[in-house]
């Protein structure tokens, strides 16, 4: 089997394509820098900022905020717990190395049962992709039809869309475990299920715990947004205060949201330390903790507490209330789903979608680029040197440490406020439309990327950097010649991954007035043109899948060596 080597595009071509893509995106996203300089918009922003003070800390309002915060947490916890229920069976079935390829499959004879499983496995991967591709707000609107307004549709939306994300992560983790111990288990006569239980699961579970906790952190932010479907919570209150021009309340609410996110992060870090759960390098939420088997006692305690918290939160969201799920829930949702088919595919309608689609893609590209710029500007100064190499002391050291804290603080502020809420702020500045969406996406992405960049830089092994410092290199030179080459692979991977997520986010941003296909989705939903809603969901699915494909290509170009090594160990037979 020999294939002619495929011609690779040269660097000049790639640079050209990239520049053209960025310019086209900027046009589509309606980037008007002049609107940022417009005195009228300055006045609007000044009015907004002035209105923020003094913050509203009256007793009655603080009570509202506390209740909203608790509701947000309860939705996030229940949604995360249910998302695991969705993710595990689909993730296991979608694992290619168990059912489709690799040494565990290829050296067995093909049986009809095996072929059926292989097809089911492909199907499971497709289902996971679909669950991920539909924005969580759209899922929430769908569940509102079934169970009515309130926290429960929010919980179900989180369960389904984060179930899709977690399921994919599970499948990837299961596929990435070292296959050689699995081969050794197979040589003892173990069945595939036993190999999974004793070989794959124990290798993957620490990363899965780490990623689930990270996903929970995301769920807290998402839960804040789902207030738009009547789920209540902090996001809903912010949107309400925005509409009532009660800017003083926004400071209090944002503060509460920040506190909530910080508490979540601290809690999840503590839990990870208790469980010794590390994500592997190259994964989001990767933070290496001390190795070791968690004691049985610590593990059982953590599991027990988690179960109790989940049940309490499920009760608090009204999940078990008698009147939420009734006999007609299923039929209402089936009726709604039935109204979606067939999707409207008339050419005249599809033509009207071309421009919103271009806008959505443009928003995601420019938003991500803006995020990268903000992330680099804030992420580099936010990076702490390795503790053993921290040689700055005296005034300079204090200034540097203060700057570091300040950057970290700014990053978490940008990150804690979801895109949808940033849109509301930027609409004040530049008016309704894609540019507001782009800025919102960029600012939030900047917060995410800055933290990831800083964390990744801190993960780089200090030894080569020490070597460079010994040659007399300056800080910037060390960054360019030591840190960047070491971290490049992960940084590119994160950034591309984030772009894929941002494409989905840019439809959601649209829902809040940020332009693009999201506004169209919102309008058609309100008007009850369900076949068009179906078309739009399909378009989103295709867009997300296409971005995933392009993202894979970009990642592969940057990580070709790593992938080849991985494939050599995992897939190709060893000879010798």
């Amino acid at each position, binding site marked *: 089997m020999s294939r002619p080597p495929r011609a690779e595009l040269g660097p000049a071509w790639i640079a050209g394509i990239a520049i053209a893509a960025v310019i086209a995106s900027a046009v589509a996203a309606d980037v008007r820098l002049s609107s940022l300089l417009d005195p009228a918009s300055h006045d609007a922003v000044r009015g907004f900022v002035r209105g923020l003070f003094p913050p509203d800390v009256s007793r009655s309002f603080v009570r509202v905020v506390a209740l909203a915060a608790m509701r947000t947490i309860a939705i996030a916890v229940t949604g995360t717990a249910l998302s695991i229920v969705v993710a595990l069976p689909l993730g296991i079935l979608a694992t290619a190395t168990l059912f489709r390829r690799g040494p565990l499959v290829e050296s067995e004879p093909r049986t009809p049962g095996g072929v059926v499983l292989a097809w089911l496995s492909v199907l499971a991967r497709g289902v996971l992709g679909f669950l991920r591709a539909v924005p969580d707000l759209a899922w929430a609107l769908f569940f509102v039809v079934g169970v009515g307004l309130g926290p429960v549709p929010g919980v179900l939306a989180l369960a389904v869309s984060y179930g899709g994300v977690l399921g994919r992560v599970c499948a990837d983790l299961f596929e990435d475990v070292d296959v050689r111990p699995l081969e050794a288990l197979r*040589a003892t006569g173990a069945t595939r299920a036993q190999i999974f239980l004793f070989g794959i699961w124990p290798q993957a579970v620490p990363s899965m715990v780490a990623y689930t906790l990270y996903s929970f952190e995301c769920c807290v932010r998402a839960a804040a947004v789902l207030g738009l479907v009547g789920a209540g919570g902090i996001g809903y209150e912010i949107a309400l205060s925005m509409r009532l021009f009660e800017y003083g309340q926004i400071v209090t609410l944002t503060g509460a949201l920040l506190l909530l996110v910080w508490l979540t992060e601290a809690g999840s870090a503590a839990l990870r330390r208790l469980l010794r759960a590390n994500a592997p390098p190259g994964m989001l939420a990767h933070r290496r903790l001390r190795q070791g088997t968690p004691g049985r006692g610590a593990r059982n305690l953590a599991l027990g507490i988690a179960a109790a918290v989940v049940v309490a939160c499920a009760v608090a969201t009204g999940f078990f209330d008698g009147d939420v799920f009734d006999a007609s829930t299923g039929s209402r949702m089936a009726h709604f789903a039935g109204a979606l088919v067939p999707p409207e595919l008339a050419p005249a309608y599809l033509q009207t979608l071309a421009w919103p689609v271009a806008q959505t893609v443009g928003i995601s590209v420019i938003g991500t680029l803006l995020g990268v710029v903000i992330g680099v500007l804030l992420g580099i100064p936010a990076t702490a040197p390795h503790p053993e190499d921290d040689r700055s002391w005296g005034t300079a050291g204090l200034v540097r440490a203060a700057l570091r804290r300040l950057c970290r603080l700014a990053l978490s502020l940008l990150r804690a406020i979801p895109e949808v809420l940033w849109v509301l702020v930027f609409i004040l500045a530049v008016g309704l439309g894609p540019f507001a969406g782009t800025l919102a996406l960029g600012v939030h992405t900047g917060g995410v990327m800055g933290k990831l960049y800083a964390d990744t830089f801190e993960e780089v092994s200090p030894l080569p950097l020490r070597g460079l410092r010994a040659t007399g290199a300056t800080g910037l030179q060390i960054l360019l010649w030591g840190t960047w080459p070491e971290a490049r692979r992960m940084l590119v991977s994160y950034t591309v991954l984030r772009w894929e997520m941002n494409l989905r986010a840019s439809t959601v941003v649209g829902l809040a007035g940020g332009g693009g296909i999201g506004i169209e989705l919102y309008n058609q939903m309100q008007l009850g043109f369900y076949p068009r809603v179906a078309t739009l969901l399909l378009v989103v699915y295709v867009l997300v899948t296409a971005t995933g494909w392009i993202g894979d290509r970009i990642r592969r170009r940057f990580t070709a060596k790593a992938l080849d090594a991985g494939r050599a160990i995992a897939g190709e037979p060893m000879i010798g």
Partner: protein
Amino acid sequence: MIYRLEAVAKVYPSRGGDVTALGAVSFEVASGERVAVIGPSGAGKTTLFRLLNGTLRPSRGTLRFHDRDVAALSPRQARAMRRRIGTIHQQGLLVPSLSVLENTLCGALGSWSLLRAVRTAISPGRADLERAMAALAQVGLSDKRDARADELSGGQQQRVAIARLVMQDPEVILADEPFAALDPALTASIAALLGGLADAGRTLVCTLHDVALALRLFPRIIALRGGRVAFDLPSDAVSKGALDELYRGAPAAPLDLLPASPSPSPHEPTAAC
């Protein structure tokens, strides 16, 4: 006869054209025999090995285990065959995040139902626990039962792999370069452990690159070169000339680019012996 190989060949499809790892190898191994397989790297030792333990199927020719053609076995029968064959690899190939005890228990997976495996994963039964502890005592690692496999040194990992073998209780032991990663003292102790297991009437087939060790420990030597049997002789009949011929200008391995051992990750704690 435990093994009967008739013109067994293994060809790997590859992008640059097919790679023949083994071409027409024939020999027999009788019950209770001790055989060393030697040859330069790239000679096909590892491929032969994976054919013998039933994790690869021949591309051509027939491989019989207890007079049954391996290619005709159903997946269930193939598993039953693997259960009777114990394998030791160059590195222990333990599941890194499981404890020593759990890795030892894995040896019995082939004789367990899924239900029993699930039960054992949660909390092992008393009888299995006692067997596993006895196996660990035999290799002198009783005190390490709760350590993670990746915290152990290479020699200790190899001993856990042998404890797993004891747990499996196979009739054939296949060892692929079991001493490659060990220093001389450890080699002697692992060789003694393997010899003890073989003394109980088990068949032992071992690939080795250390010819002197092979000649000293094994009564029969099969030499592979370029995927074919170069000679198959009692060890006292192996001449220096034959060995020189075997290793002279050994062709570079077609895919000998893989590292012999995974490079240590900077994050992993390096275990000292």
